[in-house]
């Protein structure tokens, strides 16, 4: 069963990767979008007096938060509850869905307005709520677009970055019946009109979270559109879902994390709205939800926590910077991964969240170039972890054929006699490869299917070294003089 699943995930990944990597139009489109991001991000990074010192500090603060997670969570939830917030704990995705469904039933809710939350994608909330008969609408523009297309977000920060304005115009015409033109301004106003009454009439609002502050008992939400502000202001009941790793120790830590998230995530100095919530509507306040439910989700984050080597992957603030610079992500795209979290960080954490053997292939789909590690604002050692995943997967479940192959290679490479013989055989049989190149008979098929194998030269380096023209006596004297 597991073996069959494994084969499915790997083969689906390969099929989609091959297809997307061949879509030159899409690749060019993504590259253009990301080069704009890169220029803006670099300008914002340069404005920091020291981006590197800020990264180190952010990494240390996150280390402190994650390595004392129990204490911080107790402080956070104690403070939240003291001001009337209902705190729920969910070990699994199913538990989180049940808690949410129960709240909606208790409130006799029909309509839910949702602001962007990757954690809700992780628990497949929209699907579950729709199946239970609730009317859920995504309020973030990019999320609305992918929701109307019945697909997952392409990117954790830019959900609809794979779509052109023409595709979005057609979608809005079909699903909303309103699309005056394909201008981004006009299309954004379609979403604005469509959503306005929904904020006012929704029974329940739903949000994710970017940070949680232990010291003051707050949830901090970062956004640009104002949809999350409205979601947390107007409906009578508000539900917030967050992973347990989102906690930061102190209120003042946000002074560092908010501009770093904006810079790394979107090339902005600050995103438009950064909002800290510490309770439902308080006495003397004119609006806000009467009830606020905060759900803390584990969903195997504690398994990642139990691996001290990779624990720092829980530092992730979901800025998407590692996706943006990753040569694999840029060429195969976000949907190819088949995971909630794509790109380098997704490849690192998915094996922990969903099973190492089933998802180890993501760690192999990497050139280990290290661009992700360099981009990460909280210094997660991403490419090291990709390598570590490969190592862990091989140690837990050795591939016997591969092992035998390396054993033979080791034997040949350690014995000059065999090595010379191997080279000879290689050179002699090389012309035969031409006839089977890329076919199933080709032993190097995985490589040669899409690439050329460089011809082995007649003269090897060793031959050349032995027969190299010796320098004259004059040269030698210069040589010894140096």
């Amino acid at each position, binding site marked *: 069963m597991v073996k069959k699943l494994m084969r499915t995930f790997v083969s689906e990944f390969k099929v989609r990767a091959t297809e997307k990597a061949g879509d030159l139009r899409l690749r060019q489109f993504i590259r253009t979008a990301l080069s*704009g*991001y890169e220029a803006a991000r670099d300008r914002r990074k340069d*404005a920091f*007096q020291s981006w590197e*010192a800020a990264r*180190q500090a952010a990494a*240390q*603060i996150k*280390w402190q938060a*994650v*390595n004392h997670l*129990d204490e911080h969570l107790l402080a956070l939830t104690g403070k939240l509850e003291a001001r009337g917030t209902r705190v729920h*704990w969910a*070990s699994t995705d199913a538990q989180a869905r049940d808690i949410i469904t129960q709240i909606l039933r208790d409130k006799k809710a029909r309509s839910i307005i949702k602001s962007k939350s990757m954690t809700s994608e992780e628990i497949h909330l929209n699907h579950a709520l729709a199946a239970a008969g609730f009317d859920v609408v995504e309020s*973030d*523009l*990019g999320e609305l677009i992918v929701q109307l297309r019945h697909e997952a977000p392409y990117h954790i920060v*830019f*959900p609809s970055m794979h779509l052109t*304005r023409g595709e979005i115009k057609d979608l809005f015409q079909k699903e909303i019946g309103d699309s005056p033109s394909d201008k*981004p301004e006009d299309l*954004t106003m379609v979403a604005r009109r469509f959503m*306005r009454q929904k904020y*006012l009439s929704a029974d329940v609002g739903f949000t994710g979270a970017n940070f949680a502050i232990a010291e*003051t008992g707050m949830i901090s939400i970062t956004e640009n*559109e*104002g949809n999350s*502000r*409205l979601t*947390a*202001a*107007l409906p009578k009941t508000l539900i917030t879902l967050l992973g*347990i790793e989102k906690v930061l*120790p102190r*209120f*003042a830590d946000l*002074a*560092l994390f*908010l501009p770093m998230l904006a810079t790394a995530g979107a090339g902005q*100095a*600050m995103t*438009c*709205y*950064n909002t*800290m*919530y*510490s*309770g439902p*509507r*308080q006495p003397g*306040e*004119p*609006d*806000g939800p009467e009830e606020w439910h905060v759900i*803390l989700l584990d969903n195997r984050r504690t*398994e990642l*926590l*139990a691996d*001290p080597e990779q624990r720092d992957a829980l530092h992730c603030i979901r800025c998407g910077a590692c996706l943006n610079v990753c040569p694999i992500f840029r060429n195969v795209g976000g949907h190819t991964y088949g995971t909630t979290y794509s790109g380098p960080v997704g490849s690192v954490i998915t094996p922990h969240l969903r099973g190492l053997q089933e998802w180890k292939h993501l760690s192999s789909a990497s050139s280990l170039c290290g661009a992700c590690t360099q981009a990460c604002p909280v210094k997660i*050692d991403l490419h090291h972890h990709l390598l570590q995943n490969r190592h862990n997967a091989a140690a837990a479940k050795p591939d016997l054929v591969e092992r035998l192959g390396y054993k033979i290679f080791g034997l040949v490479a350690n014995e000059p006699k065999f090595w010379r013989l191997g080279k000879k055989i290689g050179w002699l049989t090389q012309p035969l490869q031409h006839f089977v190149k890329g076919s199933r008979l080709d032993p190097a098929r995985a490589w040669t299917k899409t690439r050329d194998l460089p011809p082995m030269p007649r003269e090897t380096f060793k031959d050349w070294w032995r027969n190299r023209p010796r320098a004259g006596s004059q040269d030698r004297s210069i040589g010894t003089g140096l």
Partner: protein
Amino acid sequence: MSERENILGRIREALKLAAPFPGAHHEPADHLSPGPDTAQAREWLPGVGQTQEQQFDLFAKNCAELKADFQRFSSRDELKAALLKIRDAEQWRRIASHDGELTQFACRELGLPTLFTDRGYDAQALEQCDVGLTECDVLVAQTGGVAVTSRSTGGRALTVLPPHHVVLARREQLVADLPAAFARLQATYAPHFPSMISFITGPSRTGDIERILVLGAHGPKKLTILCLLE
């Protein structure tokens, strides 16, 4: 056992093994550093000027980049004249505001039907207003942003539902940078924080269609900050 105890139990079990400290991979962390003091963040974040004048100029520059309108006035008469000018240019018919010394002054001078949100309001009526006129807690020179709260600026929706948000500010509300802004909010409110504190940095925006900037996604399409320097 409750899920709370289950999760805390798994966390405590997991943390029995120490993780390497950032930047010191493969070395066990034998000390428990609380992390650097965030006040130090001032040394790493983007630089701000020395004097208040320089910081006002930086605030103005950041606002221009964010496409927020920022104007400074040395008297209430000038402030009033600027407000009336915007009122007439945009043909405001209904405005929404909250109790406050500056907002009450402005509402009196504007002479329009006004919805005050302080003691509860009808959200549909607020949605019909042309402008939300509020005060603020802090102006941040470093970012060009303002901080508002659910207690001091008329609730959660007033600063985000109407299509134009006009902020009336005073000189002493300007702080140099984000660490100073958080310190001031903490000094003002801790431990009884308003249920919402929001940093607003420019008018609502999105780049979700081809990464092209559009203003006024769901929040205000326009943000105007009028600062009285008297």
